[in-house]
């Protein structure tokens, strides 16, 4: 499986259509998030977005749904391209069974989906839960956070701190991959999400938001991520088994 993941990642690294669509997606997400932010703080019209709802709750959900669709399309297109170009004959006549091929694709694109979700989540959380300001934090002299006024550089340090969790998360995912890809990644993401939520709720948000309300977060921190991780594992196993059954009965 590790060799297949290396193989697939090498190929994706050279796949221009993949790189372009992946970049395009994150650029679109950034524009979308910016528009939401501007709408929320009143720079666009009256500011129709409610201020008492975490920014992440609506800046994250729609892009995540789009991401799931994009990943599925990319995976299907990748298999289709292998069939159309005939490269699948080369792959399946090396030491790669059909099951390994399917599992490699499923795992690679699941990982991309999970990684993309994690990045989206971290970006949204970084903006929403930690900087609850009425204007862009970087270029303002000082920023209103709840009822408190903070120096912009203080906000910047908070942002950097929040982004500082990204490398450990990525390393954690990488280490988890060495063992049992799907289950380990899901578990790592789940645990990381819980820790991040707790960190945001108990340390960062109260520190910069004096009137921070716990009511906007789920009653059990990280409960949604546990369900998400479980669903991912189950879906992956089902897809794997299903495709395996089909793949081993089709002439190529």
């Amino acid at each position, binding site marked *: 499986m*590790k*060799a*297949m993941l*290396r*193989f697939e990642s*090498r*190929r994706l690294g*050279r*796949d221009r259509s993949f790189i372009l669509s992946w970049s395009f997606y994150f650029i679109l997400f950034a524009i979308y998030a910016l528009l939401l932010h501007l709408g929320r703080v009143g720079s666009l019209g009256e500011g129709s977005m409610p201020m008492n709802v975490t920014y992440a709750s609506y800046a994250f959900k729609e892009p995540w749904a789009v991401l799931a669709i994009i990943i599925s399309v990319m995976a299907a297109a990748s298999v289709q391209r292998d069939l159309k*170009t*005939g*490269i699948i*004959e*080369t*792959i*399946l*006549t*090396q*030491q*790669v*069974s*059909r099951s*390994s091929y399917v599992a490699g694709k499923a795992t690679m694109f699941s990982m991309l989906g999970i990684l993309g979700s994690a990045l989206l989540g971290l970006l949204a959380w970084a903006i929403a839960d930690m900087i609850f300001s009425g204007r862009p934090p970087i270029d303002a002299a000082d920023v209103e956070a709840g009822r408190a006024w903070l120096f912009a550089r203080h906000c910047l340090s908070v942002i950097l701190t929040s982004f500082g969790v990204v490398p450990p998360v990525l390393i954690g995912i990488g280490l988890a991959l060495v063992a049992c890809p799907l289950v380990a990644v899901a578990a790592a993401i789940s645990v990381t999400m819980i820790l991040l939520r707790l960190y945001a709720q108990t340390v960062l948000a109260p520190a910069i938001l004096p009137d921070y309300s716990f009511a906007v977060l789920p009653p059990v921190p990280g409960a949604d991520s546990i369900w998400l991780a479980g669903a991912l594992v189950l879906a992956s196993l089902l897809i794997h088994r299903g495709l395996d059954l089909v793949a*081993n*009965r*089709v*002439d*190529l």
Partner: protein
Amino acid sequence: MMRLLECRGITKTYGRISALSEIDFVLEPGSVTAVLGLNGAGKSTLFRILAGLIVSFSGELYFRERKLRRGPGDSHDTMFLFDDPRLFEEFDERGNSRLIADLNGGWERSQAPRRAGTSAAMEATGSDEAGRKRIGEYSHGMRCRLAFELFAAHSRPALMVLDEPTNGLDIEALERLEHDLAKRAREDGTAVLFSTHYLEMVERTADRALILRNGRLVAEATGKDLEASRLRSLLLGEAGKT
């Protein structure tokens, strides 16, 4: 002697059309067997069944005396090369070598086979400069040579199945291929099964030829019957099963 590969009653139909009918043969280690037939005789279908690419067929297939549900294409000790071998066109030779190594468990194995594979491939296809070109820019013949070298370098095949490996090869590459096949069979005990339309190559290289006509195994030639003129007669149906 141990039977490396055994086919019993291999039959493949596409609807009402019979592509292969009751094919029986055995391959022993160190043997070089040619499969001959006119276009549409069923050679490629047979090879695709052996490679595990076609899985819906009837008959029995044994590899190392173990019965298989489908061809041993993904086994670590087999090598399959088809007439229009596909490589990763957006990569150069080194990139292809790494990818083929990955597909053969390269991550777990040492770096040596990977380097050896790259060196052998680059030696076979020309200079270092050529090695930096993307495979998409290669001629058909160069791609065939490279594919053969890469696949062979990254596996230790006990069975080598080559579907028309001579297509697009120049005279130098052809002689090299003949030499390689003979050497592998003689020194490594590799069983070689190949198809071709070059009867002179069969005469020089093979120790047996299977003649297919309309999906049926109609003749088997050994010894003096491997002379190109006799093979031609067998192919065109001017002689019965010998």
